[in-house]
């Protein structure tokens, strides 16, 4: 019970610090909307073929950018923020107090998930208003929420695991981007897959969690078929990330 209460208290401070950090607020919130506007302006008059359905690019990008914002808020943010805090000695300090590790990390993850949900709501509302994109309702809304929460939690766990391969603060942003940007491209986040997409890209997309996450989210926005398999693959990646984090996450600075 104490751990739960402490998580709640800690969450408030994480939230306070998050909104006072101009970089995190900007990159997390402005980027997805900016990309949505840019991509739609560039490619908005095209259509995308998903299975038997023809979808407006603008609708497609609302779903894509919702996914992109979840990945940024969870994976990128956790991986960079935790590396900075580790190298600044903040993690080590917290680890020398009675605050349970689960409460410290739990508050972080909970906060990232809440930010991700907020971002999806903003993206969906923006898409609805500006591009008259569809938004999930009814049963598909429920499935959408499950897919969203599973995805957000999984990308948080993977972000924690990623800190293990980041040696210092300067390396945080480059390494995070080197991991996530190619995979986002290879998962059709920025440029939709088509009939001519090479097989190796489809295979990469099939292995990693981003494509599965995108497909499960698209079902809510676009009405394409929903499959629990996609959610399970994402969840499996999340569990793998959690296990790796438990094994390799460190509280001590690597440098200085």
């Amino acid at each position: 019970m104490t751990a739960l209460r402490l998580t709640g208290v800690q969450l408030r401070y994480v939230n306070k610090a998050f909104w006072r950090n101009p970089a995190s607020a900007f990159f997390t919130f402005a980027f997805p909307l900016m990309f949505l506007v840019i991509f739609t302006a560039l490619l908005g008059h095209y259509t995308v073929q998903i299975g038997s359905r023809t979808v407006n690019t603008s609708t497609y990008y609302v779903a894509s950018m919702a996914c992109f914002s979840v990945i940024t808020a969870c994976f990128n943010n956790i991986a960079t923020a935790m590396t900075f805090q580790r190298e600044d000695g903040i993690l080590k300090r917290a680890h020398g107090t009675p605050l349970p590790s689960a409460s410290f990390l739990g508050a972080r993850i909970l906060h990232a998930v809440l930010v991700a949900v907020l971002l999806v709501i903003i993206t969906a509302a923006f898409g609805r208003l500006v591009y008259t994109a569809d938004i999930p309702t009814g049963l598909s809304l429920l499935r959408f929420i499950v897919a969203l929460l599973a995805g957000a939690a999984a990308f948080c766990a993977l972000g924690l695991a990623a800190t293990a391969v980041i040696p210092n603060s300067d390396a945080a942003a480059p390494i995070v981007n080197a991991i996530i940007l190619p995979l986002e491209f290879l998962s059709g986040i920025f440029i939709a897959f088509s009939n001519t997409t090479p097989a190796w890209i489809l295979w990469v997309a099939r292995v990693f969690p981003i494509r599965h996450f995108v497909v499960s989210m698209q079902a809510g926005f676009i009405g394409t078929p929903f499959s629990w398999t996609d959610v399970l693959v994402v969840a499996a990646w999340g569990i793998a990330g959690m296990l790796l984090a438990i094994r390799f996450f460190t509280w001590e600075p690597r440098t200085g």
Partner: protein
Amino acid sequence: MSDELAVRVRGLVKSYGSVQAVRGIDLDIRQGEIFAMLGPNGAGKTTTVEILEGYRRRDGGEVTVFGFDPGRDRAKMLPRVGIVLQKSGVERYLTVIESVRMYASYYPKPRSPEEVVELVGLTEKRDSRVTKLSGGQTRRLDMAVALAGDPDLLFLDEPTTGFDPSARREAWEVVKNLASLGKTVLLTTHYMDEAQYLADRVAVIAAGRIVAEGTPATLGDRDLLGARIRYRLPAGVTPPDTLPGQPDVNGFTVITSADVLQDLHRLTGWAIENRIALDGLEVTRPSLEDVYLSLTDAPGLKS
């Protein structure tokens, strides 16, 4: 309770690979005492303290902090201690008072955050962001955060390294304040004056061993060592036969004296009688620094 030792260490050893960082340390720190571990960089101070704090595992020996083994019962020990690490940050987007409140919330019986901020002299900076603090103020915030849970024992690992003299003074006053609250403090430092000013007892540590232990006044038998009498004679004059001294490089004659009063009386009596000036006459006792340097530089000690 007051008889209970705050810290008890017996035969502590720790190696990193083939390097023996700590080679059998014994410590007893009583409650309410300010205890300094004094030693050069790489002597094993931080390793010892971080084992006591439960950050590192020991290879051997017994360690208890308030009766708890920091390796096994860390969760039970942590509510009673406050830790100031050598280098550790505070969330940079919070204010001073918010940081103290946040850390206070982790403890079962915290001290009032306002009181803690006052104790470290940051009341004026109460609502400043952490990023706006000077180096000395940041260090005092470190202490405030460590004090937020109202600990019985405070670990201070090199609290003033890299500080200018006024920032050091400020930090020292905070530590002195803690002592008046009855807190136990374990301090590491490589500054002699810091140990001398703050500590009730000092252990000098070099190459992983304690080479001397005592109060700042008696450390290394400083009070028992002979004093030095030093003076310069005019050209052509030789020292009295009864008081043979050694000439030093600056042309001074140096006498190591076991009985200063007697020797000084004989020397000045001889000088007055023979109308000889004793230029730059002075009597000195070995400083803590001399003792420290002789202890930590002893040949064969370095690994």
